[in-house]
């Protein structure tokens, strides 16, 4: 049985919805706020911004992260930039254009009202960050400067050298630290949330494990916010940080929160190729590089391993410029990644593994000079050289697509509320505003939009109904029960007497996912993958070896719990990909493509969000559909030609 999902989109014209919503929702009076407790799980851009802003507003906030400091959240690694419709470059940008580009870039699989709100608040983000001291790039007149990013034709991306995420996160971290210093936020570093506690159908708290001592803790909140990031590490190899995981979102899912579009994965076109079996993660080379770098492979297969410097212009195939003349090297990520795969599948890859294409700066250096290129990308070039031992100023970089971002996540309504009352999701953890494909520099925008400008308002609507709700004692049986379940599971992992390491299972899962649910997918492969993952789940619980005990600092135990959740998520992702009989954005089903090999959507049957409901252990999940209605944008075939 499926249910009708209420996305709670406010009525009225698109451009007025948010303003009207903000001025008419019920508020919590200042004197009531200090009695209301909010738990924020995750202190990356979304969580740190939300925790700081809610504390400023007067709520009592507890915040959690698994790293040793909020400053180390995965957001820190974002390189290229953050979008905002400031139109400082006077090149025709506007809120509407950012909205439109995002809808189109997402291949018409996101919600109009949410995306418009995102575009509206984008400008305030830049103001807020500059006020906090975020050192965005400036020109000689002292004003902010912008770069362009894939998939759009205006310059709206603000950046801080190649480390925009670092500077934005340090800004949010400073705002959070200020509230911690004031006692308005209680910060729990090295804590991992392992379950949501529900009382009478409503989220009322969490169970968290202190990662230093291993002790389990109970925390009450009138509302719980998950800002726990994306789940790209289900593929084992990705550009995500080692600890990035799905655990918090997955536990919420099992407690009733629907999971939206789990199969929408972004494969980023420019990453450093895999060098061997030992590889633990992949390193991104920012998309901004495509502003100046030209992507190519040799025309002839027999030239593929020749020294690139000896190949003349005639012998090179700048395939993006050839196939997509209007956007050239700046096509969106999904398009660029698939084109790289096609070139490599044709046998023209430029390294021994068969998985690499060139990104060449020769012409840009000749045009602008080495110094200019160094000023733009110096730290990226340095990182490339450190990893590969090759100098990109002298030879083209070798790059290949890698898993980077997950558009899927917990289903949320306009309020960012999940399908469990009192449980909210923000940042990459929610199924978000990016549809089937995220445009570059839009994740930072969404994380900070959710954290600073959306959630602190929308959650107020719910909290205004909670002012008479006294804090619930964590002695409540629901807390005891949840804690017991968490403890049993940890014991099961720690007491398992198998022979195989957690990493071994994780690698095997990653391979199944990459081969069958990665850059291209088909029904046969997905069906097989589901069966293989189910076998792997059984084998994991029967044969994993986890050293050490539960009541101690035990990184392997943490990993084991996360991989166990990835094993379940992977199955759901394959089911979702199998259900979606179309190609859209990052989801490319081989059966559904145009004669030229481009993605072929099926708007008639699949213009909906797939919101999966957990149905119990070994039960098939239930598919709920949220139809997407487009009142302002006409659905078109995406073309970058």
């Amino acid at each position: 049985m499926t249910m009708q999902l209420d996305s709670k989109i406010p009525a009225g014209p698109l451009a007025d919805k948010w303003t009207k919503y903000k001025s008419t929702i019920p508020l919590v009076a200042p004197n009531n706020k200090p009695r209301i407790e909010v738990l924020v799980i995750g202190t990356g851009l979304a969580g740190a911004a939300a925790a700081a802003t809610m504390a400023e507003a007067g709520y009592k906030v507890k915040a959690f992260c698994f790293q040793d400091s909020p400053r180390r959240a995965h957001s820190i690694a974002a390189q290229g930039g953050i979008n905002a419709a400031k139109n400082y470059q006077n090149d025709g940008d506007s809120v509407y254009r950012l909205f439109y580009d995002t809808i189109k870039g997402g291949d018409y699989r996101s919600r109009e009202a949410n995306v418009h709100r995102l575009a509206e608040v984008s400008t305030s983000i830049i103001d807020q960050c500059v006020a906090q001291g975020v050192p965005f790039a400036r020109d000689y007149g002292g004003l902010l400067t912008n770069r362009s990013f894939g998939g759009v034709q205006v310059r709206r991306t603000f950046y801080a050298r190649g480390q925009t995420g670092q500077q934005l996160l340090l800004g949010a971290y400073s705002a959070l630290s200020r509230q911690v210093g004031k006692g308005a936020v209680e910060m729990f570093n090295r804590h991992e949330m392992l379950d949501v506690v529900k009382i009478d159908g409503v989220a009322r708290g969490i169970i968290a494990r202190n990662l230093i001592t291993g002790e389990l803790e109970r925390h009450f909140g009138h509302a719980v916010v998950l800002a726990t990031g994306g789940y790209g590490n289900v593929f084992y190899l990705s550009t995500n940080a080692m600890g990035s995981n799905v655990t918090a979102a997955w536990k919420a899912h099992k407690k009733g929160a629907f999971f939206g579009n789990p199969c929408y994965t972004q494969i980023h076109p420019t990453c450093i190729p895999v060098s061997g079996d030992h590889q633990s993660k992949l390193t991104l080379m920012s998309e901004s590089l495509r502003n100046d770098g030209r992507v190519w492979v040799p025309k002839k297969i027999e030239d593929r391993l020749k020294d690139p410097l000896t190949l003349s212009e005639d012998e090179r195939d700048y395939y993006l410029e050839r196939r997509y003349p209007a956007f050239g090297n700046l096509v969106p990520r999904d398009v660029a990644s698939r084109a790289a795969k096609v070139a490599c599948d044709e046998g023209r890859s430029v390294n021994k593994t068969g998985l690499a294409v060139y990104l060449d700066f020769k012409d840009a250096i000749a045009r602008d000079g080495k110094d200019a290129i160094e000023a733009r990308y110096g730290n990226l070039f340095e990182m490339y050289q450190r990893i590969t031992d090759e100098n990109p100023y002298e030879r083209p970089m070798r790059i290949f697509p890698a898993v980077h971002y997950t558009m899927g996540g917990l289903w949320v309504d306009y309020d960012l509320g999940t399908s469990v009352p009192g449980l909210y999701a923000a940042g990459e953890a929610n199924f978000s505003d990016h549809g089937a494909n995220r445009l570059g520099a839009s994740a930072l925008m969404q994380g900070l939009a959710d954290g600073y400008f959306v959630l602190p308002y929308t959650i107020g609507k719910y909290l205004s109904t909670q002012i008479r709700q006294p804090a619930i004692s964590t002695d409540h049986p629901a807390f005891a029960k949840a804690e017991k379940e968490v403890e049993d599971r940890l014991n099961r992992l720690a007491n398992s007497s198998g022979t195989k390491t957690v990493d071994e299972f994780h690698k095997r899962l990653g391979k199944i996912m990459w081969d069958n649910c990665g850059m291209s997918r088909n029904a046969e492969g997905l069906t097989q993958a589901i069966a293989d993952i189910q076998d792997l789940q059984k084998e994991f619980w029967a044969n994993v070896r986890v050293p050490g005990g539960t009541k101690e600092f035990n990184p392997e135990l943490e990993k084991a719990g996360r991989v166990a959740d990835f094993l379940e998520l992977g199955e759901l992702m394959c089911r979702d990909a199998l259900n979606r009989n179309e190609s859209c954005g990052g989801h490319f089903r081989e059966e559904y493509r145009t004669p030229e090999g481009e993605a072929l959507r099926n708007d008639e049957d699949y213009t909906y969000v797939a919101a999966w409901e957990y149905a119990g252990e070994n039960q098939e999940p239930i598919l709920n559909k949220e139809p997407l209605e487009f009142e302002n944008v006409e659905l078109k075939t995406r073309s970058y030609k």
Partner: protein
Amino acid sequence: MKLNLKIWRQKGPKSEGKIVDYTVDHVDEDMSFLEMLDVLNQDLIVKGEDPVAFDHDCREGICGMCSMVINGRPHGPWERTTTCQLHMRAFKDGETVFIEPFRANAFPVLKDLAVDRSSFDRIIQAGGYISVNTGNAVDANSIPIDKETADTAFDAATCIGCGACVAACKNASAMLFTSAKVAHLNMLPQGEPERAKRTVQMVAQMDKEGFGACTNTGACEAECPKGISITNIARMNREYFKATITGSK
């Protein structure tokens, strides 16, 4: 290649630690240093031994989580490189490598190579911010900042908070870390109003945490993976002096 490792093992904050010998075979020169430790740990787990605990997350040299002293140097032999970005081509077949935690009174060992650096968070909480509530900001271009000032502030802002400066310093001083944040914020017009108070409070917290004094050896700058300059320390000293003689707090 094959390496002999001498690794600091310590069960918990209160236990005694000691150096334990290990060997790893099949080390590929394209591996990162942490991937080499992954290989060791996989072996240890299969053998039923306790794997070596160490902190890490991004493995891209930006989160500041990885933290170990390799052959006596925080983050090892490569200049301006974190442990996670150090690659095994830096070592020779048969070499002996010492691996120890960052050591300082203000960084107690949690287990093996993992230490507690929450003292750094508390220094930031004492004043490493600009007091602006969400929604209070003016338009981002309303205050131009000349490019040179912006770039210098940026250089200071690139600190990743790893603590190598403390580990490198014979006094375990946190002056480079603290001064980088003070310099970043104090240089910007937005940071101006809280300049004196910020400096005084952050320095006071630094002292309270038990970090040592700065005797200008420059070891911090030499080992900093981000090349944060000790001119920031001089700048902070000037700011501190000014703030305390004018009595503004």
